[in-house]
Structures are given as C-alpha cells and as structure tokens.
C-alpha cells in the first residue's frame, strides 16, 4: 500500500526515525506475507471470515491487535497513518497505537482523514467520506455476527456455508414484537455483496450506511479470534431490516456544541453532577476542521 502522500506540502507530521532492533512494522516478513494472503482471500470473498495465524503483539488482545496486525502487514514507508478510537485521534488507545507505529515504522502520521493513506479505527467511521485509494482498517473484537445466537463456531461456520441466516432475522423480528423496533445500537449486522452476513465491528448503526459502496478498501482484523475479513471498494453493504421496518439511524435533538454540526455522530458529555449535558462531535478531526473553517470565514467577513 505504498502511494505518495497527496497532502498539502509539509502538513503531515514529518516521519520520525524508527527505533532500531525491530523489523519494519514489528512483524517478520513471513508473518506479514501470511496475513496479506488472508487479506487477499478476504477481498476475494467480501464479508467472509478468513482464519489467520494471529500473533501475540506487544499490546493486549482486545486493544486492537487484529487491526494492528493488518495495518502492520499493509503499511509501507510512504504511507501516512491516522489512528482513531471512538472517532477521536487523541484518546489514549489511539495515541498508543500511533506511537507504536511511529516507533516500529517511522511513518508519517496525520489527524486529517483526507491526508491519510491508511486509517486504523476502533468503533467509528469518520464523518468525512473516504476516498478511492485509502485503506481503512477496523479493529474487531468479535468477528462472528452469529455468536449471540450460536456460540459454537463449528455450527456458525455451517450456517454461513449454507447461507442459513434465518435465526438472525428471527432475532430481529423478536425485537420488533417485544420493543416495536430493532434493539441493536451497535454491532448491527450487515449483508455484504448479497451473500455473507458480517459483523461491522462495534461501530454505531449510525455509521453502517457509510460502508455501502465505499470507494476505500475496508479491512477488518480480529486478533484474539484470529479472523480477517474485507469489503473491497464499491461493494454493496446492506444493514439487515424488514420491508415494513426499514433500517434507520439515530439522530440528535442538539447540534454539536463546538461546530454546530447536525449531521455527525455526537458524544454526550456529562459536565456536572446536576444532570448537565452537552453534545459534541465524536469525530475530533471533523469538528476541528469545521471550527477552523468557521473562524476563517468569520475573519473574512470581519
């Protein structure tokens, strides 16, 4: 995944010097090759989980080791990396993963979605649409969408092979009879390329529509469960629903307190112990860019 950075000159942070004593991107070349093979298989069968021999990484399982291994296998010296967790570049886990790749790759990093060639994420898809040529890597805790219906992987594999997804629809139907709506807020199952039921990773359902016909390559790494899957660019991704209960995303009664956005996913921030709340964009880059634009245009006006 080497491509020259299209960003404006000098705007991504200059590449740091990698720490000696590690192979580029930590993994040895044989391991990277094995992971790339799994990725290629995944791309060939969109949404299908490919087993791979996940390695122990210097971060704990559950901290994004699957995504880290995928990133480590596709990253090149010319890449510009962005890492987000909960939509933000400055959350501790995002900081830590970015720090790791700076240490073992010495690649340039950025917080701007449009400048990155490679983006690793946990729990969010950025608000700014991804572009062709970008690689978007998800950290996946539980790749098997059927796990809460069928905990046995032997059985779940059979269900995928036979396209036996009835029980999932039954579960969604039961939600509707009990609650009047589908009660899944995140981890909302999708059908990829009309064939494979897929767990989108715990992104909020708000982000599900962004996966559909996305021009970027979307890769999913589950380290502990040792599975990789992929959505190639421009692949159909449909959130499960019923004709009389179409899929819908949540919206907020408030705009973002900082940038006024009404189209972004908002975080509820508790500001005191009197029930005070405010809502702000979870995508910190999106919010900051909008604030900058607003102050820029305000200056122009003034």
């Amino acid at each position, binding site marked *: 995944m080497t491509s020259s950075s299209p960003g404006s000159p000098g705007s991504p942070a200059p590449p740091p010097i990698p720490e000696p004593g*590690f192979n580029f991107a*930590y*993994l*040895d070349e*044989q*391991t990277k090759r*094995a992971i790339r093979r799994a990725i290629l298989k995944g791309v060939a069968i969109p949404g299908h989980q490919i*087993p791979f*021999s*996940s390695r*122990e*990484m*210097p971060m*704990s*399982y*559950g*901290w994004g*080791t699957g995504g880290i291994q995928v990133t480590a296998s596709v990253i090149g010296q010319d890449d510009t990396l962005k890492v987000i*967790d*909960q*939509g933000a570049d*400055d*959350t*501790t*886990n*995002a*900081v*830590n993963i970015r*720090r790791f790749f700076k240490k073992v790759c010495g690649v340039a990093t950025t917080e701007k979605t449009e400048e990155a060639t490679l983006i690793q994420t*946990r*729990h*969010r898809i950025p608000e700014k649409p991804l572009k062709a040529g970008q690689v978007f890597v998800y950290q996946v*805790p539980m790749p098997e969408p059927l796990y809460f219906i069928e*905990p*046995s992987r*032997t059985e779940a594999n059979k269900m995928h092979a036979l396209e036996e997804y009835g029980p999932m629809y039954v579960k969604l139907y039961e939600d509707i009879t009990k*609650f*009047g*709506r589908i*009660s899944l*807020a*995140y981890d909302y199952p999708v059908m990829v390329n009309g064939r494979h039921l897929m767990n989108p990773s*715990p992104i*909020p*359902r*708000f982000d599900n529509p962004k996966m559909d016909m996305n021009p970027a390559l979307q890769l999913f790494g589950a380290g*502990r469960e*040792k599975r990789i899957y992929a959505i190639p660019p421009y692949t159909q991704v449909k959130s499960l629903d019923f004709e009389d209960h179409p899929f819908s995303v*949540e919206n907020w009664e408030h705009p973002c*307190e900082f940038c006024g956005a009404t189209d972004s*996913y*908002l*975080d*509820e*921030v508790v*500001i005191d112990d009197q029930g005070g709340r*405010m809502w*702000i964009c*979870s995508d*910190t880059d999106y919010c900051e860019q909008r604030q900058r634009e607003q102050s820029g245009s305000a200056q122009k006006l003034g």
Partner: protein
Amino acid sequence: MPYVAVKGGEQAIRNAEALLKAKRRGDADVPELSLEQIKQQMQLAVNRVMAEGSLYDPDLAALAIKQSWGDLVEAAFLLRAYRTTLPRLYYSEPLDTSEMAIQRRISAIFKEAPGGQKLGPTFDYIHRLLDFKLAAEDNTFPAPISEEYDTAEATPRVAHMLEQEGLVMPPSNGAQGNGSQTESGMVGTAHPTGDGQRSGVEPFDITRQSLNTPTNRDARLQNLARGDEGFLLSMAYSTQRGYGKNHPFAGEIRVGEVEVSIFPEELGFEIAIADITVTEVQMVNQFKGNKEIPPQFTQGYGLTFGYNERKAMAMALVDRALQAKDLGESLDGPAQDEEFVLYHSDNIEAQGFVQHLKLPHYIDFQAELNLIRKLRSDYEHNNSQPEASEKSKKERSTAAKEATS
C-alpha cells in the same frame, strides 16, 4: 464554555509508565532483585511463565517476571509478544522422554515399576506449616546425597506394560485410532508418544495456524500445553466431580531433562540444541468400550515445560475428557466440549478481552443510551395511552398532593 475536551493522552501514558517503573522498584534502600535470584529461587514461577508464554528460556522468563512486577500472567504475555518477533527456523525432532534424565518419577498404579519410584523434590508429603526459620536469611539447606544412579539409563514407560497386554488403547490423534509405531517411526498419526518417533503426519502448529473446530488431538494438546494453569485445574477438577467423569489413575509422572534436537536437511544429520526440563504425565482412565472396541484403559497425556506437575496432571485429565467425541462417549460436561475448553484456555487472550472493557466505549454506550431512551419513551407512551381515566385520576391525586404541600 467551562468544558475542555480531554487532551494530552500521550503525556499521561508516559507518566503512567514511569510511575509503574518506580512503584515496581519499590524502596530504593532494599536491594534490587537479580535475574539470577528469580531464576534460582522462583524457579516454579519461571517454569509457569515459560509454559504459558510458550517459550523455553529461563533467563527471559526471569526478566519477564521482574518486569511484570511479579504478575505471572503479564510475564507470560511479555514472553509471547517477544516470541512473535522470532522466526521459526526449524521444527525439532520429537522428544524421547524415555531417555529422560529423571529427577522425579512416580506411578500410582503399581507399587514397583521397572525403573523404580523416585520422589525427588516434592511438596507432596511436607506438612504445610509456615517455616518461620526461613524468614531469617542466610539459611543453608544441604541436599541429601542419594545413591549413585545412572541417569543415562532409559526408564521404561509404565503405560507400555499395559500396552503389551493390550489393556490400554495406544495414543491416537482423533478418530483414526491408529497409533502403532514402527522402527522407522513413519507409521501412525501426529500424537504424542514421548518415544522420539516422528510420525508420518505433520503435526498441526497452533502458533502458525488458526485453530479451527473440530480439532484433532495434536492441536488440542498444544493448546492445553500453554493454557492457563488455573483454568485447566478447574476443568480437570470438574471431571472428577462428575461433569464428564472418566476415572483417572496417575499411571506415571516423570520430571527431568530431555534432549531437544533438530535435523537440518542441508546437513543431513541430527544436532542436539538444548536440554530442557519437562514434566510428563500419563493418566490411565477407565473406558467401558463400545460395539467396536472392547473394554480397556485409555490415556490422557500432559506435558509442560519445567517442573509443573499440577498443570501437567490437569492437562492429562482434560486431554482425556476431550477424547470423548472420538470414543463415542456422551458429552455431559464442559471439560468435554472442545470449543468451550480450547477457546477459553489461553490466559493471554482471556486477560486481554476481559480487561479491554477498560478502554473507552463511549460511542457504543452513547448508542445504547439513545436506544434505551427511545425504548423508554415508547414504553411510557404505550403504558399511558389506554388508561386515560387512570391517568387523569393520578394527575388529580398529584395535583392534590402539590396543593397540600
């Protein structure tokens, strides 16, 4: 606007690491632990870390224990992460544990076993009384001198005696049930015999392949060998209490050093690369037989790095329990369910996933909050509509209360 979004994660992470290092060192007036001290005087901890860290290196294991502040699961994790950086150059030849230089060897099924019983260093018959003299330093404990004993002499396997009589099923790798050995070692399946024989089938490698169910015994044993000791102990215990009962007897337990050798094809001969200490357990279990197989004993096998008998015994019991599906036994207990056991045995995986709940989840929680609020408003809406008269009654009563207050 009083609110400022939390920033400075990188500085906080650096400070947390520095604080951890300082706390780990403790009082600077107390001498620092040396790796040699850990390796010598905390040897069983080193053994456990090597087994669960899946890397035989006492020096690195001692370093990991020092670095992890004595947290052995964390230490095993450090070794595993280091292991990732090592290329796999060769597969060793199968170990021949009958050629073990024996430190301890016992059998619970025969009073006299050829090769003899040897207690070795064991807690088994020690009164567990706190030894207050040990609290003082500068103790010396001379080892008793035992009669000369030729460690080079092979010690025959106890289970082998039962095999000669056809009373015990030879070890097998799953349903095939064919484990017979030939001189060349080219017949059979990938199963542990401890006989130093290479079987015709390449064994599964859980460090290079993703474990898929249904599994064969080679993959299961590898998983158990580096599985969490506490987990295996509980699983083994559950079989004894009736959740998948299989009447175990400790056929043989042996601890000692074995030679590890590799056979580089470019050289064309074997080279010994190390002597490692292992604990090997062969359990003999009851089997009532079925239509095809007459009643006989079956075996459970346990092998760990270092001296770690509790783990090796637990492993052997769980190995036997997991053979239930191959033997056509009914699956009654969790220890017989390979998906349950194998996917939950690894403490590096388990500790990570349990503790990852500490990471921020506020996006999912926000989504859940929105959903719960929606469901609540649906609920309140549904419950208030049909009973309009009830509602107005309530309103009246609250209005009355307010008026009185």
